[in-house]
């Protein structure tokens, strides 16, 4: 049915995108990956449980898999927009790499974006603060200790 398709516009990584013929039930994750080819945002649980699809909306982390694209009003930042354009790493990315928090890497874009918002609000974070503040991101390689170390290290910089 024709009315199952909608047009919408999204601001992603500083640019405005006009999306034609999206499904009315389409998620932000789906638009980012399959219409804008921003595949750094990962698709996993699709129920807001794992955090792999985390993006920033006006600077705050949300699960893009359970955000209706039609209901996203604000500036979206994906890992492509967060990472420096010259290919270098942010201090947080460097700290996570140095701590050894990179195995399969699937959770990492979400970890980095959630972590970036976390350290913004928690300078010199304690381990307990990291454990609570990062509870929305799962790592199936279970590299949690190096993740905690990397985020603590980055929050102290």
């Amino acid at each position, binding site marked *: 049915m024709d009315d199952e398709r*909608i047009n919408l516009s999204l601001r992603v990584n500083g640019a405005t995108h006009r999306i034609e013929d999206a499904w*009315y039930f389409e998620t932000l994750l789906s638009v980012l990956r399959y219409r804008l080819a921003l595949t750094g945002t990962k698709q996993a649980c*699709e129920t807001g449980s794992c955090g792999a699809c985390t993006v920033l909306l006006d600077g705050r982390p949300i*699960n893009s898999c359970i955000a209706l694209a*039609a*209901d996203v009003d604000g500036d979206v930042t994906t890992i492509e927009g967060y990472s420096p354009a010259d290919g270098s790493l942010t201090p947080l990315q460097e700290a996570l790499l140095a701590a050894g928090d990179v195995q399969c890497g699937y959770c990492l874009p979400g970890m980095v974006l959630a972590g970036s918002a976390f350290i913004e609000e928690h300078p010199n974070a304690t381990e307990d603060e990291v454990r609570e503040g990062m509870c929305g991101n799962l790592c199936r390689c279970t590299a949690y200790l190096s993740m905690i170390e990397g985020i603590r290290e980055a929050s102290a910089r």
Partner: protein
Amino acid sequence: MTVTSAMSGRVVRPTSLEEAITACTQRPDARIMGGGTLVVAERALGISTTPAYLLLSGIPELHGVTPGGAAATGGPSRIGAQTTLRALLDAALSPMLDVALRSLATPQIRNRATVGGNIAERRPAHTLAPCLLALDASVGSAGPDGTRRRSIRDFVAEGLGEGEIIVDVALPARGGFQRFVRVAPRNGPGYAIASVAVSIDPTGRSVHSGIGGSGSTALPGTAADDFLAEAIDWASGAAPAGAAEEYGRLLAAACDPPTDDRASAGYRRHAIAVMGRRLIEAWNEEQQRG
């Protein structure tokens, strides 16, 4: 701006409460959506194939928290239905809500999920309703027949009418002891198996509680609260020996818990009794420490 008023017949985003009520009537098959964290996940799981969505995000009067005055003297705090759980946490209205909200899902979910969405469908496992029962809140709503305000007790018993949406939650100023505890499969994110929220206000000399996960909706612990308010010697701030035990027993008696894949009815009833007793013991200890 992503959208204005209606994007198609299937996604409607009203910009005023009036428009929203009209849209509810015109599109009764639309699923009303606060932040969508539950609604969109249910679609992904195949639980729901909603033919249309009515988004509440574009209605300014549903957003934001207006803090009330001090305990005993001040007016109520007003929490708009579209307030995110993160914004409610940031508003620091009550020590009970602080603990409860930090245990509620993840930072990502709290940045999106709304107060109205957490209570609208009266799901027993959701966190806010037991707390709002313990804080003696009221719920304002609007529908085709106008607006109304009900106690949270009436709201959890009756729910929303046809085409009715939640406008706000009002929290009366309340001091004293406020606690929320739960049993859950783990400390991290996830629904509680059972939860208890209790508030004991020495100024108003009142006890209110809410029970989660142990009935078809959140339940008030009215009989237990009445018993304790009567048993406490408010002048000295002490409860007699055995009052905590009896309080827990009465809370458990108010439950009608389900047996499901997470826990048996007996486990839940026992957990409620233990949590109720321990909360009153904790209050007693606080009183003795002064």
